[in-house]
């Protein structure tokens, strides 16, 4: 197979599992290392389930499926714990990202690794939600005055909380981009259009869920975890289609981000797309991984890291932020 050992190898096999038949031992070894590094081994395992492979690979992927199933159970239990804590408030609780995908039984959730529980609540309910979580065993992760104040004033979420018994984090969002970003999505619209799941939980609408994935990737982050997030986008489009998506993205001011997400997802996992130079740079960053699972292309990575901060806040504020962070680090 004419693919070097980088993120493209994983993308190629996810797009076309039948191509795995051409892998030799070194190819399988690289594929597994890359999939683990991208936290996509469970996704790969489900995608290749039932296809021919060497017995040693079959065992590794069977373990990965069992592990992902257990992760799914934990994620749903964590959502249930949050639901119980917040039910008395009577506020809408919208599941985001991986937990929403598995709760709704979506293809994007199959085998997906899920870390924190991410929820969206109305901004005016934040204080009540915070009190309810603290009263039910969640605690602050970062007891740092600057970070705490920064989160509360400028971020789209509360400082992360962790449950003292279950050791699981919860991120409570009130919108999907930092308040300092130049784009302001319609947070009330996200809540108003949310789709009920069961037991009082909900998830974003079929268009908003794709808008959120794109916002997270391009308008906020440095493309870390990009392979997985673009797989989410690919699966969501497969299942939900793109009807009304462009209009909805424009409504949130995220038309560019969604357009790019669709092109990159198509390039990696779909039928390809016409790419701009910016798209190609993103793909270079997203696939920067070698057959040992190591991060490669450090300058590309650094460029996107700088860009993510540039997008997140105005220049003067960025300078002040980095200065404060640097001084704290120097003191420590």
């Amino acid at each position, binding site marked *: 197979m004419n693919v070097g050992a980088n993120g493209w190898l994983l993308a190629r096999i996810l797009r076309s599992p039948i191509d795995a038949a051409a892998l*030799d*031992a*070194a190819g*399988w*070894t690289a594929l*597994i*290392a890359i999939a*683990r*590094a991208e936290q996509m081994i469970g996704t790969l395992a489900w995608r290749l389930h039932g296809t021919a492979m*060497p*017995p*040693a*690979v079959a*065992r*590794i992927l069977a*373990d*990965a499926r*069992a*592990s992902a199933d*257990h992760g799914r*159970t934990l994620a749903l239990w964590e959502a249930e714990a949050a639901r119980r804590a917040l039910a008395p408030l009577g506020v809408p609780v919208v599941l985001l990202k991986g937990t929403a995908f598995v709760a709704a039984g979506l293809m994007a959730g199959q085998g997906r690794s899920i870390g924190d529980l991410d929820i969206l609540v109305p901004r005016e309910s934040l204080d009540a939600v915070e009190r309810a979580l603290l009263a039910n065993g969640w605690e602050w992760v970062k007891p740092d005055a600057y970070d705490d104040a920064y989160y509360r004033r400028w971020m789209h979420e509360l400082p992360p909380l962790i449950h003292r018994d279950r050791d699981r984090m919860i991120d409570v969002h009130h919108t999907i981009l930092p308040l300092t970003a130049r784009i302001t999505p319609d947070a009330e619209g996200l809540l108003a259009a949310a789709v009920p799941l069961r037991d009082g939980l909900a998830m974003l609408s079929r268009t908003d869920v794709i808008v959120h994935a794109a916002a997270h990737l391009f308008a906020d982050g440095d493309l870390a975890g990009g392979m997985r997030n673009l797989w989410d986008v690919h699966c969501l489009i497969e299942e939900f289609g793109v009807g009304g998506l462009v209009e909805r993205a424009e409504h949130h001011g995220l038309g560019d981000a969604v357009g790019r997400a669709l092109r990159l997802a198509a390039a990696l996992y779909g039928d390809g797309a016409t790419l701009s130079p910016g798209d190609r740079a993103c793909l270079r960053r997203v696939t920067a991984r070698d057959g*040992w*699972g*190591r991060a490669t292309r450090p300058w590309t990575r650094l460029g996107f890291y700088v860009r993510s901060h540039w997008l997140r806040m105005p220049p003067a504020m960025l300078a002040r932020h980095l200065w404060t962070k640097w001084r704290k680090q120097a003191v420590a």
Partner: protein
Amino acid sequence: MKHVFSVRIGPVGFRVGSDWREPIRQLAALYAGYPQPEDGVPDFTVRLFAQRPWRRVIRPAVMIGGDFMIPDAAPLPLAQGLLAAEMAMNLQMALGQRRYLLLHASAVERDGRVLLMTGESGSGKSTLAALLSQRGWRLMGDEFALIDPITGLAHAFPRLVSLKNAAIAVAEAAMPQARFGPLLKGTPKGAIRHLVPDAAAVAAMDTPGKPALLLFPRFGFTPDIRDVAPGEVFMRLTQASTNYVAMGERGFDALTRLVLGIPAQAIDYPDTGHALAQVEALWNAL
């Protein structure tokens, strides 16, 4: 990576990549006679690397990484590269193994039945396993016992036996013909020397055994033997397992079955001679 070594230890295949030749050369020498990973595809990848390019040569320090990593692992000097490799392999098992319930225990086998010994570092479980392997027992491993959740059998994981501090001289005296790795002084755990499992242990490593007895040895006390109740055994083994929680229901079922299926005793001993006699007596009384 520049230097590569692959090996299969029991049912688990590893690939170790290194920025330096020396750790790979040592691994290849000590694991000579071990097979390659099945189908050429290892279960886990391990990386030994320099944090910055110049640290390959200037005050070289070995960072450990791989498929599964802990964020704040401290580097080791290159002279302890072998230890870094062993730690990194153990780390993959501890964090990434999902096929078997892992017990932090040594294991030896006789007549198809397995004796498990678990305890904290310094309890003597590695030393006792090494000494028993000289007395008609087959060494299955000194670090992890692998319990298959489906069959309940214990699988061998005979990696290099890690002898620490005073145990080094004891083993050297008892096994003059055995092969040892270099003496590593000043490691985070004191002096360490690796013992190569004997040929019989490697030849039989694909043969699992049925757990028959669990012991909690404790070195440095007057001789004593006590029964340990199943509830306490269960709690102690959850703490001695690195993947009990991650295994979920399968882990709970496997551990319950093990605890209810075999007797457990705590043995206190002042020296290895007492311990070996206690072990033989308990085993013969089964």
